[in-house]
């Protein structure tokens, strides 16, 4: 890219190799590339955090409080991107969902997943057995609440937490293995993780959150 400061054509790194000015990001690099981590699920978290902090130290707006507007903008843009990358990669669920999205499947939607295809996107519906299971558990939850059956409530929470952890583990294993069909498998597990998570959240909130309350 052309350095805004010295006008030389230099490599798109953090700082201009010719004059040392901070350079804006070239396009939108993915979170792994930005932090400098391998694009996979398993991460050396200590190394990841170290790299995030080192990069932040170098480009943080505080270092450019008195620099000119372009340097300040570049520092802000880079730090915003680094913070977003670190926020996503530090959290196992967010990292897994992000990785799956980079691999072509978007887990973000309420009613299943979107798979990137050659012509656009196709919707993949939620596994009906998962839906049926969740419906059953919600009924059990309501019933236990009504009858103030705390043993049943605790049992239910334990069950769902176990399913949640199991699904997350399966997703992670699939993502690290990367065999044929593993991205789809991981995506399916991550959809389940979302359902379990919401169920557990509604537990903690005292049950005020109803299914689907997340979107109006």
């Amino acid at each position, binding site marked *: 890219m052309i350095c*805004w*400061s*010295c006008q030389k*054509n230099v490599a798109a790194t953090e700082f201009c190799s010719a*004059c040392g*000015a901070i350079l804006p990001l070239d396009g939108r690099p993915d979170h792994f590339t930005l932090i400098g981590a391998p694009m996979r699920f398993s991460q050396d978290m200590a190394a990841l955090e170290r790299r995030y*902090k080192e990069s*932040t*130290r170098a480009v*943080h*707006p*505080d270092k450019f*409080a*008195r*620099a*000119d*507007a*372009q*340097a300040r903008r570049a520092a*802000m843009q880079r*730090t*915003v991107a680094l*913070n*977003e990358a*670190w*926020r996503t990669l530090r959290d196992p669920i967010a990292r897994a969902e992000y990785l799956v999205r980079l691999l072509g499947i978007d887990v973000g939607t309420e009613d299943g997943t979107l798979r990137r295809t050659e012509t656009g996107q196709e919707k993949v519906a939620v596994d009906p057995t998962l839906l049926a299971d969740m419906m059953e558990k919600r009924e059990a939850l309501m019933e236990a609440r009504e009858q103030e059956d705390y043993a049943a409530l605790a049992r239910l929470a334990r069950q769902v937490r176990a399913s949640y952890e199991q699904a997350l583990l399966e997703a992670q294993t699939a993502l690290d293995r990367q065999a044929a069909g593993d991205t789809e498998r991981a995506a399916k597990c991550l959809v389940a993780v979302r359902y379990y998570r919401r169920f557990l959240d509604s537990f903690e909130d005292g049950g005020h959150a109803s299914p689907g*309350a997340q*979107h*109006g």
Partner: protein
Amino acid sequence: MAEALFQISEPGESRSKEACKGRAAGIDLGTTNSLIAIVNAGEPQCLPDERGEALVPSAVYYGADGTIAVGARARHELALVHPKDTIVSVKRFMGRGPNDAEATRKLTPYVFAPSAASDPVVRFSVAQGKRAVTPIEVSADILRALKQRAEAALDGPLDGVVITVPAYFDDGQRQATRDAGRLAGLEVLRLLNEPTAAALAYGLDKKVDGTFAVFDLGGGTFDISILVLDGGVFEVKSTGGDSALGGDDFDRAIAEVLLARAGEDAAAGGNAQAARAVLDAAKRAKEALTTAHETPVSVTRSDRSVWNGVLTRAEMEAACQPVLNRCAPACKQAMKDAHITVGNLDGVILVGGATRMPLVRAFVKELFGQEPLADIDPDQVVALGAAVQAELLAGGDNPGDIVLLDVVPLSLGLEMMGGVVEKLIHRNSTVPCGATQTFTTYADNQTGFDLHVVQGEREMAHEGRSLARFKLTGVPPLPAGMARLEVTFTVDADGILSVSAQELMTGQVASVQVKPSYGLTDEEVERMLLDSYAHADEDVRLRLLTEQRVEAERILSATRAALAATPELLQGDELPRIEESMAALESLKGGTDHNAIHKGIENLDLTSKNFAARRMNRALEQGLRGRDLGVIEHEIEEHKVKSHGSSEASH
């Protein structure tokens, strides 16, 4: 004008670090007291007045004759005689609208200037009704006094400041603080969260790593923050609090007890002078009871009779306990958000004058299970930390490896259909941070969108705090659903939001109109808009320059190629004239005036026009007959682009 504007953006033009050294200060703009501090020989220190007093009471008196008095005299003398014309605790009103202020009006002596419901700012009627001032102006007057103090001490102008704000301050309150700084003629390098400033003062002092809670109970605000100090990186893990809870509330609670015991009706309001007097009596009693176990108190009743009595510490504490209890949920939430328990805490730092109260210390000790740290004066610690940060930002010689990673105190969201809030930036996200959201037009040729930004944790827009309404205009007219508008929200290191938008189909940048819901006068908004235009101007200028340079390069290389390919088509004195134009453009290209470059391009176009036309005819004659002229023109264009590309690569 144009020249001056361009100078601002000239690369490498930033001021020399040497010139700024020692000229940056930290300011704690407090509810009750304000302080200014600088770093001197590596040590932060608060600047005292001639009597050795570092605290400047945050009180401003506006006289009918135009006099303005700030500080001790305003607080201790004028506030008693002219309660309506002396504004104290103005911080409570920063970034607040008239409706918000209603809640804080109780037991305040002020007269509020009448304002329309749509007025985004409170105005105090002062100077015996001759003037209406906004909280921003009052704060600016306090800042001016601090600035004068620092400039006298430094024997020179102050070059930049860091002003602290409660971590829990919302966008409007931060905007108001930054505007007050600008109004006072200060360059605000950064708004720094008070707890972070306190941790900075302690962290540098103790040079330890670990997890700390900062419990900050000031005059009017309560903050709790959990920070991790790790090898010079100060990372705020979570923050919470209440921007309308502080020592003043203790005074108010005690005052209510005193009034009740004197047989007066607190709700009636009474006259302003009496209200001020009873609040002061309450404050004095509270301070006395920090060490004493009982203190004499007196209240002048509305019938001018005087009630005398004794207040014990136990009675005072009973009145204050309910106020203090309001701190507990925020502390627990902050620890939960930081994923820690009291067992993980390496220390609890006390900030704010109210933490001197034995009741507060006992409360903190019980809540966090350990004796809190208080070895730096809780009144000064924030200003000291701010001075350290100011020095770092101004490029002083402090260890350059310190970085503050602060967070957004409240989630930011957009009101969607049906009033539901869609959160874009979650609370406790590290700043600066951003989020993008894509919108699609729902009507043919729709050229604008209205967006409503809300701050807070609630699900519905009307439950949160309205921050601003944005009008996006200049969307290119396209069929419904075709225009896709990408809106980017950015929260900067000061915790202040900005919005930009771009249409994805055309790459056209939509303009964003800001209508803040609170805090700024029309003039302020106007100035903000002027500022943004100034920046836009700067950006546009650079873009035009780059475009013209590229265009000049393109036409120069195309002409060179044409001259080399078909010299036989030149007629008369065409060659020297074209060469002259080329030389002229070549030298203009190195300059910074995009208009001049553009004229140079037009000039070269003109001198080579006939030559180019003959080349076109030749091309037609050479067996390209029968093909569409457009295709040929296209090919020639292609050729130009290619030659431009190769010339670019050779650079």
